């Protein structure tokens, strides 16, 4: 039991790192399967380049859109946007900051796909062998048949052996590009994380507590919502079958739900840990917490919006 608890604690402490690691592994595995099973270079001058580029970029685009769909923050931003006033929809600087953060988080899986695909080499070999510009550079010191035979190189069908050897060059270029992409992405990620942590208005320990608080709030919200929903449903069904009038149930109103579902903004004067916390501690009963002076969107506090009843914490 204690060992299980230790594993669970490890999971809770590093769940975002584990989540990202899992996404990376799945993407890398998927790419290997695609490249081994599905991908067959056509080896023709007209089709190599489009085929290779499609296999390289289209799954990346699909993963990018999937990243948006699976983020709870996207839905928090979009839900109910049509009906409410424009100001609360988060347009202007606030909305664009949130959008930028969402895009950066959604870009992880596509970049992993492209990096693993480049390290594998098959897609780039096919695309580059069909490109006229690269053919000129590669075939610089060779005879005329080189440019004509280059598209056949990925299928090992080129007759001249020195042209077939260009396959190794293409693979090498692909792998070097892949490593440079990985190195560049990781340093940019480090710089952005450092800058956003630097701009954080709260200290290290408070941030740590904040993350733990949000997880707990999410869990308890889920259990309380389930409990409340069960009670309400039982009452309604019972009254329907018995034809009686349901007793008064204290459900939060539409306005209250809207208030706690809006995007989190940090206020230096009253630092609350979530919109729910802010709402519960508001000064007057009819006061709206939607927009007060001093509210700002802080990049490092983006994790506050990522919580939802149905998703796994933090992912």
């Amino acid at each position, binding site marked *: 039991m204690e060992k299980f608890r230790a594993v669970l604690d490890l999971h809770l402490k590093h769940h975002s790192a584990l989540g990202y690691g899992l996404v990376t592994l799945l993407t890398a595995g998927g790419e290997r399967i695609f490249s081994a099973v599905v991908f067959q270079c056509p080896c023709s001058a007209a089709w190599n380049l489009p085929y290779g580029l499609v296999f390289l970029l289209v799954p990346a685009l699909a993963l990018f859109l999937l990243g948006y769909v699976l983020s709870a923050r996207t839905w928090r931003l979009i839900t109910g946007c049509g009906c409410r006033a424009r100001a609360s929809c988060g347009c202007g600087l606030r909305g664009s900051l949130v959008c930028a953060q969402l895009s950066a988080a959604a870009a992880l899986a596509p970049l992993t796909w492209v990096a693993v695909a480049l390290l594998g080499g098959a897609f780039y070999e096919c695309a580059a062998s069909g490109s006229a510009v690269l053919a000129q550079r590669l075939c610089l010191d060779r005879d005329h048949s080189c440019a004509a035979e280059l598209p056949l190189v990925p299928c090992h069908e080129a007759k001249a052996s020195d042209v077939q050897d260009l396959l190794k*060059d293409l*693979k*090498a*270029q692909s792998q070097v590009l892949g490593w440079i992409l990985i190195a560049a992405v990781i340093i940019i990620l480090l710089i952005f994380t450092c800058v956003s942590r630097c701009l954080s*208005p709260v*200290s290290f320990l408070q941030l740590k507590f904040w993350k733990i608080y949000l997880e707990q709030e999410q869990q308890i919200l889920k259990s309380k919502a389930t409990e409340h929903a069960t009670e309400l449903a039982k009452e309604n069904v019972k009254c329907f079958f018995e034809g009686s009038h349901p007793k008064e149930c204290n459900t939060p109103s539409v306005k209250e739900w809207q208030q706690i579902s809006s995007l989190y903004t940090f206020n230096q004067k009253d630092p609350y840990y979530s919109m729910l916390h802010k709402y519960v501690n508001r000064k007057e009963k009819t006061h709206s917490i939607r927009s007060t002076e001093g509210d700002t969107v802080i990049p490092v506090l983006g994790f506050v919006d990522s919580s939802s009843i149905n998703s796994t914490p933090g992912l």
Partner: protein
Amino acid sequence: MDAFQGILKFFLNQKTVIGYSFMALLTVGSERLFSVVAFKCPCSTENMTYGLVFLFAPAWVLLILGFFLNNRSWRLFTGCCVNPRKIFPRGHSCRFFYVLGQITLSSLVAPVMWLSVALLNGTFYECAMSGTRSSGLLELICKGKPKECWEELHKVSCGKTSMLPTINEELKLSLQAQSQIIGWCLICSASFFSLLTTCYARCRSKVSYLQLSFWKTYAQKEKEQLENTFLDYANKLSERNLKCFFENKRPDPFPMPTFAAWEAASELHSFHQSQQHYSTLHRVVDNGLELSPEDDETTMVLVGTAHNV
């Protein structure tokens, strides 16, 4: 059962050693994987770029990952733009660089492991060196070999030169030998350097050996207690909030540490001989948020700015 408990306790005591061994195994494993699956020397003029990228890009990635996974770096950086005095206190400006240096040194372990394993294997270095165009290095490698060596050295890894197979093999083996020598030298110098720095740090330590062991145990226990207390308080606070939301009631007051207290507790710890506090939390709790005579202006400036917020 007792024997099992004993074994488990032994392993838990050797956590650092096990951690480093695991890292070493992981590095060896991934180096073998790369070397067998992904690495194919192109045997052209691009050899040098290819070999160097495969040697240094994973080392770079491991260095950056080391920064990410080190808790001290986030403790150092969180909130530094908002309150720069926190990391550059008056009279202690070098502390930031000292801590940054410590973090870098501990992050350098994994890249050095990768480089040593990669150099001991020899494939990456062999490919990189065979693509060299520097006349000095070519002179060194091709000494006493036929003149084709100067032009066709880059094809040596694939065995496709026009020289005799024995000479080809000789060149390959000499490049691999150079690589392994450099790898061993790297391992030796890195171990010696880490021994020197540990000895120097222990020499300059203001606490004795047993007190240091106690300190480590205290730090571990405090960390566990802090996490348990965080969980407990977070639970209670969120229960209160959700109850008030669903039942539409006003919330009862819930005592939490002040903003200034959080800021003070998140500082990096430094040991003062006179006061013997084992962590920042210990110091904050003992001294309260008032100044103690030994403390310099750093705390005053911090508390001052925190109250202005």
